[in-house]
């Protein structure tokens, strides 16, 4: 909130040279460099090579891996699905989160509901994938069984058929993540001082006006953080899909996302390929995607908020 972030206003007697501070920062920095930054650089480097890992030395092939990817239907499938999760999934998650946050503000069981909705976020994704698979199974599934039980047989579908499976997966992700973003948005909304709403009420503002004149501008910074979090979450969608296919049988190729493909071509699979170079090329595309989108989101969302 109103804390100055510039270093110039620091009290002179508290100023240090970098060396003393260095001792405080070094352990965190070293681990960060080793575990995150060095592998990031290495990923880019490996993506220009052909390499099977142990027992093989990397061979520089330039842009070959990328050229190969551009021609691969499997890659484009994974790429498009990742974008679908990001955009379609994102719109749905944020729509529900917003509506729920608004509704929950005035509901008595607010905390209970929030706790239930948030729960999937602390359950290992494998368990969620198992539950989702049982729910959507074609003939014996809970959903179709339920629809039949209430006489809506015409609404039953083969939820995991090729034309629906990915929508079913996105629905699963929405079910998991909506709870998370509700809690974030709610925290933002709870922070808005009551008197803003009271003032709005006095002036006879409609709920829509309250949403656009009070809630949105005052939670804009929280929204911006949430949007960035969603970009990262969406692009690294792996666990749910991987476990959905189950271990030992590989997830169906028509559900692969970019991280699933990285895993399948480089690290493991039932009949593994160990193409580290190609896997790294996909990983670099993921990194680029995150970078571009985060910058884009921040640019779009900058300076629309109101300080208070």
């Amino acid at each position, binding site marked *: 909130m109103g804390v100055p972030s510039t270093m110039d206003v620091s009290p002179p007697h508290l100023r240090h040279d970098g060396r003393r501070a260095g001792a405080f920062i070094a352990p965190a920095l070293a681990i960060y460099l080793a575990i995150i930054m060095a592998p990031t650089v290495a990923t880019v480097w490996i993506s220009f090579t052909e390499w099977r890992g142990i027992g093989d030395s990397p061979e520089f092939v330039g842009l070959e891996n990328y050229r190969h990817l551009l021609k691969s239907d499997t890659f484009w499938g994974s790429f498009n699905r990742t974008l679908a999760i990001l955009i379609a999934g994102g719109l749905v998650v944020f729509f529900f989160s917003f509506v729920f946050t608004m509704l929950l503000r005035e*509901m008595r069981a607010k905390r209970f509901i929030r706790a239930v909705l948030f729960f999937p976020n602390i359950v290992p994704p494998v368990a969620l994938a198992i539950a989702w698979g049982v729910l959507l199974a074609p003939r014996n599934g809970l959903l179709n069984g339920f629809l039949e039980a209430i006489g809506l047989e015409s609404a039953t579908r083969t939820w995991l058929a090729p034309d629906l499976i990915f929508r079913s997966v996105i629905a699963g992700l929405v079910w998991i993540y909506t709870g998370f973003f509700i809690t974030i948005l709610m925290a933002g909304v709870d922070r808005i001082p009551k008197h803003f709403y009271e003032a709005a009420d006095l002036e006879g503002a409609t709920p829509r006006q309250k949403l656009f004149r009070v809630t949105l501008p005052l939670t804009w910074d929280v929204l911006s953080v949430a949007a960035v979090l969603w970009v990262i979450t969406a692009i690294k969608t792996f666990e749910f899909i991987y476990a959905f296919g189950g271990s030992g049988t590989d997830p169906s190729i028509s559900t692969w996302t970019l991280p699933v493909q990285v895993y399948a071509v480089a690290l493991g699979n039932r009949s593994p390929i160990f193409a580290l170079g190609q896997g790294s090329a996909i990983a670099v595309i993921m990194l680029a995607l995150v970078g571009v989108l985060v910058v884009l989101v921040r640019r779009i969302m900058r300076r629309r908020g109101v300080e208070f």
Partner: protein
Amino acid sequence: MSTDVHVSSLQRGGRLAGRGIGRLFVWSWVLFSLAMLVWLILAAFKRNNSVFRDLWALPDSNEIQNFRDAWDLLNLARTTLNSVLTVGGGTALTMAVAAPAAYALTRMYFRGASPLISFFALGIGVPVHAIIIPLFVGLSEVNLTNNLWGLTLTYMGVSIPFAVFLMTGFFRSLPSELEEAAVMEGAGPLRVFFVMLPLARPGMVASALIVAVGLWNEFLLALVLTYDVDKRTIGVGLLNTFGAMRYTSNWVGLFASVVIMLTPLIILYTWMSRRIIEGLTVGATK
């Protein structure tokens, strides 16, 4: 005038109806989640050959055997211990290195602090899924794969950027009087740090919670960096159980595994869900 009143009451009526539908929707969502959980729990007590035939039947027998099968396969004691060790260790160690770093970056006012903060923040945007290949190869080279310490170290690495970034926010907002007093008394930087640390406690708790929940859900690293049965974390253990149960089509055993795994989680969650949720959101709204 009268039409105005009319319109507004109509509007209000529509609004109320809209709100009613909205609330209905919220409750159906909640019911849906709870129903799925209840179904899984009931199914864990059913028989394998009838569980899918009659979806809504109540369990007619106490199939404790399901839980025995599950317990044997899941190796839950071991996987839980591994998860607790790596998540707990990773969180504690992350805090141990991230707190001093965040402190120095905000309270030691040296040149280059600001770009360094940005540099740490950059790491938040690097999904571990994108760097898993060299991470795996590199950790293999130094014998840190299939090793809980290696996993813990990696967990530190992936948590540090967020923890440092978050805590710089907390440390920055601390008042400087105490600090100045300590400096006047001639305390060294380390002493001053420990004077300031208690003030940042709420921020540290929040950061630790976020880190811990994130690591608890972590799956890819545990999957890739370990392979031995006794090194598996809960998520990987459950995945293996899932695989095994599918080959034997022992669905009820699988549901029993899920129930066994969820039980402590549900108990813990009922006890401290508010704490977890609020801790988590402090980060995003800070």
